[in-house]
């Protein structure tokens, strides 16, 4: 095999070096065998090799006869020719370079990285669900429709709203859907309005979503306690404001306790209150956005309801609304008629609908998993989820606040944000701490977000982590803080254990290499 990954074979040299047991981190991290693996395109043979077993093509299926020859292509030369075992080894080895929830603690703030139940995978693969075509005649798809209808009802109850659409593909599309409905609502009353108010703690998708809807974003400063204050809203609120987008608890893990008053202020001027539900995990069974003055809210089903999204997705972003906004829900809508269910697909039946957001009905595969989780938890389980998520975060906070700077003394709910302020003298940054945690055996927290907190370290343990695990994480965080004092360079040199040391992001952006090409070089 050539040497595309740039490692230098050097067996003799290294072998001669004195053998010693590698360091072991608080999370048990040590070193073991790993394997360099070239790109698929750098593998395989020039020949007829193939990793699938397909039926033969009937002889005499002469293509030219019915397809324009100028549009035909032969086999794509740059594609590799691999056999099944080669592919199995490739992905088995690649996977070992990854860290997932199944590997260990993954306190990535704002992402609610909780355990994804394996049962759900078996359920989502039941042939009736997995093989259902989205355009099945309704009488052949009653199972899908029943499940969607029941999930909609459950989500409406959990969030305290009148109705829910399951369609959106992820949180951001849920936001898009919600703001579109807000816009449609205002339009229906004559004027779409121009502005959307967004606190400075908000996730980037909030302003981006507003912009996509043609709204001008007015950023509101949070108070010294990390909360949005009524005054700030009152000052910015006017008849030209379509809505305010609030995340509650916000991205600092702090409950926006003035939410009711803020909602009043906004409603008084005819505006609507959008709830970014990405942090709903904190409130499950304890409080409901629909009871706080929110008019519309998206769920991040893949976070709060534990649907797998390995590598960055898929998500699912259902949107719940009040009665007033229900007419604007996107299509399709599942309607129940006795024991039968049907899909309302046409604007003729829902003239005020904002229309369609997906080619079909949403990420059904995720609906199955989320519904299964809700059914296994029941009311008590859901409430315990919120309570234990908040307990874990507060425990971490209590155990670390003496060594890491806590920018806000305000109560935390499901996550806690620290900063690298205390480490500054040593020159060690949040990024260094994050990388050093890898050598201890933990996935780093979210870093440098929210933007209002310089050097933020955002820790969200979730309810599926045990006290033992959190105690080990706390030990690691404290070890790193100690090491910053004794050996800052050691911290900056991290990580040492993974198959790759710190990667050069500047180089990647300066000369983008975004795909393989024959003879590809990275320099």
């Amino acid at each position, binding site marked *: 095999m050539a040497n595309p990954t740039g490692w230098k074979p050097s067996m003799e040299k290294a072998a001669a070096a004195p053998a010693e047991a590698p360091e072991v981190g608080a999370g048990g991290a040590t070193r073991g065998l790993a394997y360099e693996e070239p790109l698929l395109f750098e593998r395989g043979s020039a020949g007829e090799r193939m990793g699938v077993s397909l039926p033969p*093509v009937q002889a005499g299926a002469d293509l030219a006869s019915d397809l324009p020859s100028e549009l035909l292509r032969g086999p794509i030369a740059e594609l590799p020719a691999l056999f099944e075992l080669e592919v199995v080894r490739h992905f088995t080895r690649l996977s070992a370079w*990854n860290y997932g929830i199944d590997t260990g603690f993954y306190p990535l703030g704002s992402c609610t*990285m909780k355990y994804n139940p394996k049962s759900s995978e078996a359920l989502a693969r039941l042939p009736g669900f997995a093989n259902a075509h989205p355009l099945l005649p309704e009488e052949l798809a009653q199972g899908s429709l029943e499940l969607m209808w029941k999930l909609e009802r459950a989500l409406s109850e959990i969030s305290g709203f009148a109705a829910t659409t399951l369609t959106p593909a992820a949180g951001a599309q849920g936001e898009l859907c919600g703001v579109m409905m807000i816009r449609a609502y205002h339009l229906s009353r004559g004027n779409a309005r121009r502005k959307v108010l967004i606190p400075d703690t908000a996730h980037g998708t909030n302003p981006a979503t507003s912009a996509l809807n043609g709204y001008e974003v007015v950023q509101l400063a949070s108070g010294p306690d990390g909360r949005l204050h009524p005054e700030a809203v009152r000052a910015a609120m006017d008849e030209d404001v379509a809505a305010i987008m609030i995340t509650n608890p916000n991205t600092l893990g702090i409950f926006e306790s003035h939410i009711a008053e803020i909602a009043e202020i906004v409603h008084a001027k005819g505006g609507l209150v959008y709830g970014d539900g990405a942090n709903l995990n904190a409130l499950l069974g304890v409080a409901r956005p629909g009871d706080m003055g929110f008019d519309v809210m998206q769920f991040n089903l893949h976070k709060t309801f534990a649907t797998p999204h390995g590598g960055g997705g898929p998500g699912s972003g259902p949107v719940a609304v009040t009665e007033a906004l229900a007419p604007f829900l996107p299509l399709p809508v599942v309607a129940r008629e006795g024991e039968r269910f049907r899909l309302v697909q046409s604007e003729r039946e829902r003239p005020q609908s904002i229309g369609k957001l997906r080619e079909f009905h949403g990420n059904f595969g995720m609906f199955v998993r989320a519904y299964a989780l809700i059914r296994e938890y029941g009311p008590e389980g859901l409430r315990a989820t919120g309570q234990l998520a908040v*307990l874990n975060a507060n425990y971490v906070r209590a155990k670390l606040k003496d060594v890491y700077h806590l920018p806000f003394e305000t109560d935390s709910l499901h996550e806690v944000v620290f900063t690298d302020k205390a480490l500054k003298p040593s020159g060690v940054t949040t990024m260094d701490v994050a990388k050093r945690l890898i050598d201890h055996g933990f996935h780093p927290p979210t870093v440098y977000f929210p933007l209002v907190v310089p050097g933020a370290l955002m820790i969200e343990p979730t309810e599926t982590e045990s006290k033992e695990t959190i105690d080990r994480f706390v030990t690691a965080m404290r070890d790193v803080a100690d090491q910053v004092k004794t050996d800052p360079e050691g911290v900056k040199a991290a990580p040492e254990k993974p198959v790759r040391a*710190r990667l050069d992001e500047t180089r990647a952006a300066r000369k983008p290499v975004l795909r393989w090409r024959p003879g590809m070089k990275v320099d």
Partner: protein
Amino acid sequence: MRYHPHTPDEIRDMLAAAGATSLDDLFRSIPDALKLKRPLDVAPALDEISLFAELRRIAARNATEHPPFVGAGAYPHHVPPVVDQLLLRGEFFTAYTPYQPEVAQGTLQALFEWQTFVCLLTGMDVANASMYDGASSTAEAALMATRATGRSKVVVSAAVHPEYRRVLRTYLAAMRDEVVVVPYGADGRTDLTALEREVDGRTAAVIIGYPNFFGVVDALPEAARIAKKAGALSIAVTSEAVALGLLKGPGELGADVATGTFQSFGNGLQYGGPAPGFFAARESILRQMPGRLCGATRDKHGRRGFVLTLSTREQHIRREKATSNICTNAGLCALASTIHLALLGRNGLAHLARLNHARGRELRAAMERAGFGLRFSGPTFNEMAFEVGDAEAVVSRLAQRGIAAGAPLARWYPDDPRMKGALLCVATELHTPELIELFARSVRG
């Protein structure tokens, strides 16, 4: 609770450490008036055995015994079991967006391989790390075109998937961008004269299906030429990506952007989602692209590695100035496609595409034997519209036998009298010649 590790003792100790007197006390920052004073009104908890019984009951209410003869944007294909067994590996399955590249090289290299597969199949220079689906990807392409050209008119062929067009309208509504639809001819292809007429100096993009909604291989080269002449971007939309194993990539035919879905590779039907939307374009448009991009670099020892890059386009940095609001994408679905494409490879993809085309021809022959002709005369891949008289009646009749017959085109084209009896059907490697013959006969009844 098998997912909640906390024992009563641990809860007590942790509360003490956190300085709280009870679990409720942890929520003191929530005004009492805003709290829920009752248990949620959801069904009581189920143990795993009962849970399986209940979901099996529900799943059994779907009829999925026979492979459907309907495609129309979602295609029944065989997914080799090896795909799923690799996909389920926890290190892939339970990792999120690779924000920390040193512990995400597996995800990142696989994304880099995905981006390469998309480029090779579409004939484009660059591709992103995936989109929600084909429709939103196409809508984002149109938005990108309006930004890139500073123009606001989007011309779309009526032969582009109608649901894609609905999503396009939803996305563009807010920007007050103008969507113009041009008709198709008797061959099921876009009417080029009409297109030529509509595309002008105000046109940002021309959108055309490839193959289009009728399964017809549309006039992409001509459409691309018309767009280029007017300084507009041409966007080719593909929902049956297997066709790209037999047909030249949109990029080779002059398209500037290629969008659609790779659902056909490694992703089951799942009642319509999730599946990986793809977005590919020419190098020149790179910095206008939505979504995540994975790029190659080196680590401090000089070893090749991968990272997310050019993120200054994205919402988490650019906020309201971002090229899109997309954050979570369809990573796992893209991985499934990547694994399936790796298995297929050069030879398998070509074979699969030829096989699908051949099955389409068998369907056509069987339907002709049964007395049903083609609705459109244009060239097709594995999907085509037949003239069956009363399409809705055929669908209900076959539904009684548990067979999904096809998509009655009149549902989307109520005003086109030609569509009254048009039934859109597909045949893939899952439809054996025997099954196809049986189907054609049942359509006759």
